[in-house]
C-alpha cells in the first residue's frame, strides 16, 4: 500500500461517512420540502434534539444504547409533528407566503438551539457506546467499528425510506399529496394527516443522523446549524424537492468537502459549502435532478 492509495482510501472513507450523514439529514428535509414546499429550517434543531435526547437517556439516565436510540428517534419524530401542528399549520390556514414559514422556522430554530445551550451548557459532550479495541483496515485506510456501523445504519435507513416511499401505499399517498394536494384531497387522502406523516418520518431521519454523527464526533448546541445548512445545500445541489436528488447531493457534498482538502486548507471547508450554496441558488436552482416547472402567472 503506497502512501497515495492509503490517503485516497482514507479520503474516500471520510467522504462516505460524511456523505451518508448528509444524505440522511437531506432526505428528511427533502421529504418535508416536497410535501409542504417551504424551507423547514428548524429541521436542524430536530437533528440536534435527537442527539441530545439520546445522550440524556444513554449518558445521564444510563439506559442501554438501543433503547436510548429508539426513544430519541421517536421523540424527535413527535417534535417534528408538533412543530408542524403548532407553527406551520397555523400559517397554512392563513395562507402565508413561503418566506414567512422560513422566517418563523428560523425563529423557532434559534429558540430551540439556545434552549439546548441553556440546558446542557456550551461545552462539548461525548457519547461513545461502542468499545473500540482496534481499527480495521480498508485498502490502507483505518476504519473503526463505529464508522462501519454509521455507514451501515445510514445506508439501511436510506434504502428503507426509499422502499417506503416508492413501494408502499402510504408512500404513494405521500407522493400524491406532494404533487397535488387538492386532487389528493378529492380522492380521499387526508393532506393534513399525511403532512404529519412526512414530518414524522423526516424528523426521525434527522434524529438518526444526529445520533450517528455524535458517535463519531461530539454533541454541541450549534450542531444543528451546520447540519441544516448541509441539508439545504445537498437538496439544492441534488434538486430541491427531489428525494434521490437529496441523497445524491448529500454524497456529492461529502466527497467535494473531503477531497477538497487536497486543494484547499481544511479551515476553508465551510467556505466551500457556502459558496456551493450560492452558486447553485443563483445559477442552477433546480440542481442536478430537480425540475422547476414553468408556471403560468395569473
Amino acid at each position: 500500500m503506497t502512501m497515495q492509495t492509503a490517503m485516497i482510501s482514507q479520503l474516500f472513507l471520510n467522504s462516505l461517512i460524511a456523505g451518508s450523514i448528509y444524505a440522511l439529514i437531506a432526505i428528511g428535509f427533502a421529504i418535508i420540502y416536497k410535501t409542504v414546499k417551504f424551507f423547514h429550517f428548524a429541521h436542524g434543531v430536530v437533528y440536534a434534539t435527537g442527539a441530545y435526547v439520546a445522550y440524556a437517556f444513554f449518558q445521564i439516565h444510563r439506559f442501554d444504547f438501543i433503547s436510548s436510540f429508539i426513544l430519541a428517534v421517536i421523540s424527535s419524530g413527535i417534535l417534528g409533528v408538533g412543530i408542524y401542528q403548532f407553527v406551520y399549520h397555523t400559517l397554512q390556514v392563513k395562507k402565508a407566503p413561503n418566506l414567512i414559514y422560513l422566517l418563523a422556522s428560523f425563529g423557532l430554530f434559534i429558540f430551540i438551539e439556545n434552549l439546548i445551550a441553556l440546558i446542557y451548557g456550551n461545552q462539548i459532550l461525548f457519547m461513545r457506546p461502542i468499545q473500540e479495541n482496534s481499527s480495521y483496515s480498508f485498502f490502507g485506510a483505518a476504519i473503526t467499528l463505529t464508522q462501519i456501523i454509521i455507514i451501515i445504519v445510514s445506508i439501511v435507513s436510506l434504502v428503507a425510506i426509499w422502499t417506503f416511499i416508492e413501494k408502499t401505499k402510504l408512500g404513494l399517498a405521500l407522493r400524491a399529496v406532494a404533487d397535488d394536494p387538492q386532487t389528493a384531497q378529492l380522492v380521499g387522502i387526508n393532506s393534513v394527516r399525511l403532512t404529519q406523516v412526512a414530518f414524522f418520518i423526516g424528523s426521525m431521519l434527522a434524529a438518526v443522523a444526529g445520533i450517528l454523527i455524535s458517535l463519531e464526533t461530539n454533541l454541541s448546541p450549534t450542531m444543528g446549524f451546520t447540519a441544516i445548512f448541509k441539508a439545504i445545500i445537498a437538496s439544492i445541489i441534488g434538486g430541491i424537492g427531489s428525494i434521490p436528488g437529496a441523497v445524491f447531493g448529500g454524497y456529492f457534498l461529502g466527497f467535494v468537502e473531503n477531497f477538497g482538502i487536497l486543494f484547499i486548507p481544511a479551515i476553508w471547508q465551510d467556505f466551500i459549502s457556502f459558496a456551493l450554496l450560492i452558486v447553485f441558488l443563483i445559477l442552477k436552482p433546480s440542481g442536478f435532478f430537480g425540475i422547476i416547472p414553468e408556471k403560468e402567472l395569473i
Partner: protein
Amino acid sequence: MEYQLHLFIITGIFIILSLSLNLILGYLGQPALGHAAFFAIGAYSSSLLALNLGVSPWIGLFIGASFAAISGMVIGYLTFHLKEDYFAMATFGFGLIIYSIIKNWVGVTRGPMGLPGIPQFVAFNSLYSSLIFYCILILLFVLVTIVFMKRIIYSPFGRVIQSIRDDELAAEALGKDTRRVKIMIFMIGAFFAGIAGSLYAHYITFIDPSSFDVMESILVVLMVILGGMGTIGGSILGAAVLILFPEVLRFIGIPDAVAAPSRQMIYGFLLMMLVMKRPQGLMGKYKLW
C-alpha cells in the same frame, strides 16, 4: 455617566444599521438575511486600511462604505431574480461567506484573534477623542442617515421602491425597471451598513468575527421587523429596544452564562411571534405579509 454615553453611541450605530436594512427589507420588501456582511465589510476595510496603510478613519469610513456598496451591487445583481425564500437563503449564504472569510483569512484579518488597536476618529488636533465627541459624531451621522432616507422614500422614486414590495409584477407592468431599482437599493443599504461598520470599528478599537456572525444579521432583521417595517421611527425604536434590553438583563443581575442563551431564545421567540402574529411590529405601518 460614561456607560450611558457608551450605550448612546452603540445604539446610534445600530440605528444606522437598522435604517439601512429597513430600506431593503421594509420599503423594498426584500428579505435580506445577511446584512451583517456589509457591516463587516465596512468595519474590516476601514480598520485594515488604518492599521496597515495609515489611512485616516475619515477616509477609511468612506472607502469601507464604498466597498460595502460594491458588494451590495454585486449581490443585488446576482440575486434580484430569485423568489423571496430563495433570495433569503442566498443572502443568508452571502452573510456566511463573508463571516467565513473574516474568520479564516487569518493572514489578513487575524481571524478569531481579531484586530486590536484600531485608531479612533480625531477631531481637529486632539490627541484623543472624548466620549462626548463620539456622541456628537454618531448623532450627526444618525441625523444625516435619517434625512437621506426620508428624501429617498418620500419621493416618486420612493413610491417605485414600495411598489416593488407590494407587487413586483404589477410594477413591471407599469414600466418600472425593477431590477435596476433593486440593485440600487441594495447598494444604498449596503453603503450605510458599511458606514455603521466603520463607525463601530473606530469607536470600539477592537473587532473580531463574533460581532459579524449569523445572529448579528438576524438581530438587525429583528430590529426592523420589531420596530415596524417601512417606518423610520420603527427602525429607531427597534434598534433602541434590542440594544438596551440586554443591558436591562445585566442590570437585574442575571449571570452572563444564563443571559446569553436566554437572550437568544427571546430573540428567536420574538422573531417567530412577530412573523406569525404581528408582522407590522410595534409602529406598524407596512406588513411583511
